[in-house]
């Protein structure tokens, strides 16, 4: 489903060369895959390349058999809007919108009419257990609730692939574990592929596949 072929993306960080170098990996459909490794190993860079937020210096990103890394910006935007979902470490919900409106946002940007977007957003929020928090603003939700709302936002457009960058890093253990269980369940029941960047053992323990990175290189996969 997601294939990274010989990806290199280098940049200067504190006078040193950092990034990812010659990474190739493949993630099948409905899989919860984890990019594991210490800080600075290139997890986030690889995730951003897979999510078409950045372009590789070399190599290619293929999604569902199609090379997407060389697409023009407009086409990459459309692809992100319709086929990819994102979950961030800091939740990154739009603070002026309610949980429901946050989840409706990508649907409305896709051009869905408000009633249809509302219905799908309510379903997505219900699935992550937030049906009683629809009209709460992010500031009125706990960290765990915000991250669940972010997952609902990522899933509502029914993407092929959800990319999550350290989704449990801002949550305590009691909330992090159930969140990963939720992702694993969603991957199974909806056939959505998750690629998660994390060094949290609880996340790695729930993964269907783990890619370990060190110094920007893929050192193992299991």
């Amino acid at each position, binding site marked *: 489903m997601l294939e990274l072929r010989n990806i290199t993306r280098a940049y200067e960080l504190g006078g040193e060369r950092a990034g990812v170098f010659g990474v190739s990996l493949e993630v099948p459909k409905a899989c919860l895959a984890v990019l594991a490794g210490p800080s600075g190993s290139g997890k986030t860079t690889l995730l*951003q390349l897979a*999510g078409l*937020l*950045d372009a590789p210096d070399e190599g290619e990103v293929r999604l569902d058999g199609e090379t997407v890394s060389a697409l023009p*910006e*407009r086409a990459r*935007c*459309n*692809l*992100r*809007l*319709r086929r*990819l979902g*994102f979950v*961030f470490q*800091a939740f*990154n919900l*739009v*603070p*002026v*919108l309610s949980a429901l409106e946050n989840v*409706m*946002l*990508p649907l*409305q*940007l*896709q051009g869905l009419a408000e009633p249809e977007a509302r219905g799908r957003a309510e379903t997505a929020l219900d699935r992550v257990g937030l049906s009683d928090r629809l009209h709460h603003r992010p500031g009125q939700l706990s960290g765990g609730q915000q991250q669940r709302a972010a997952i609902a*936002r990522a899933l509502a457009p029914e993407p092929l692939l959800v990319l999550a960058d350290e989704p449990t890093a801002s949550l305590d253990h009691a909330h992090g574990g159930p969140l990963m269980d939720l992702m694993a369940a969603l991957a199974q029941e909806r056939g959505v592929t998750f690629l998660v960047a994390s060094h949290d053992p609880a996340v790695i323990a729930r993964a269907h596949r783990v890619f370990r990175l060190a110094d920007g290189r893929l050192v193992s996969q299991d």
Partner: protein
Amino acid sequence: MILARLALRNLLRQRRRTALTLMVIVAGFLALSLAGGFMAQTFQGLADAAIRGGLGHLQVLPPSAMEGDEAQSLEKALPDGEALAARLRQDPAVAEVLPRIQFMGLLSTGPKSVAFLGTAVDPILEPKYMASAEALKDGAKAPGGAGSRWLSPAPAAREVILGVGLARALGASVGSSLTLMSTTRDGALNAVDVDVVGFQDLGLRELNDRFLTVSLATAGQLLDAGPARSRLSIVLKRPQDTATEQTRLQALLPGADLKPWFELASFYRQVKLLYFAIFGFMGLVLFLVVLLATANTLLMSVMERVREFGVLRAMGLQPGQLLALLQWEGAFLGLMGSVLGMVTTLLLRAGLNALHLEMPAPPGTSHGYELSIHFVPLVYTLVALGLQATLQVSALFPGLKAARLRIVEALRHV
């Protein structure tokens, strides 16, 4: 519409900053629309003064009247002005025609003589359509002006009304006897004895020092004018039709020129140009202030939302949609600012007008006037549109900055 909603929510999120920005916009609206209302008052006052000061809405002149000066009285005249006036009075669009003779000469008390500019008018029609009564009322307040009255309609009466400056120069008062001297149409020197029946204050010092008014009968005798008249002032039934009536009536007057009042009122045109220059410059400065203040606000707002913009871009928002988001914010600021500005302006205008403030006499004029700021919907509309355009321009730079953010850097932004 989701972008519009997002924009509105963003503005409401930063209430204090939005309120400060709105205050700048409201101040700009207030200054521009009040200035516009003041200009409208001034222009209308000057237009009334020109029309009711003797020009009428349209004026019939001899063809060469605007080219050079007259060597002697009635050198440039409508030869049978009275007949022409009678014909024009039959026209359904014309309310009245006021024949006039303009002449010059010397006014003498015997030992002392002063040059004058005179206008001869119909003593019956003139007070009905022109501002003679107001000028006379103001003139009566001058020393020696007590008991001022308008010219007698009797054809045999030989009377004069003097500008207050001219009267002062001669030491004349109401009831004094003076001698008017001028040349006839044939160039012969002639004189007529007249009684001073009133003073007039025309509002301009230069005019007050030289101007006098007599009846057409008195000027007719002095100048041997016969039916000749210098000009015919036409008062229209519908002043708003001045331009169209000028075209229509000109076709009926092959041997004469027909000019609208605004072409003849050079003072009106000069003041209008001056005001447009002054207030135009002021307007530009105000628009610039609003532009910079709002651009600064929107730019600050963008800098505070860099990560949020990164998330929106990651979700698939196109760069152009971020630009549109900032344009919506500018549009809402402009709309709210204009509505608040309009309400504030109307309230302040009502308050200022209720105070009946007396404005000082403008340069070159002899009396002040009451401040009355007009409500001109067109000015309000233009100011609102101008501010709206300014806000859209001011949102452009922050919008472009937001649209050009690199997503990965924006997501790292703290």
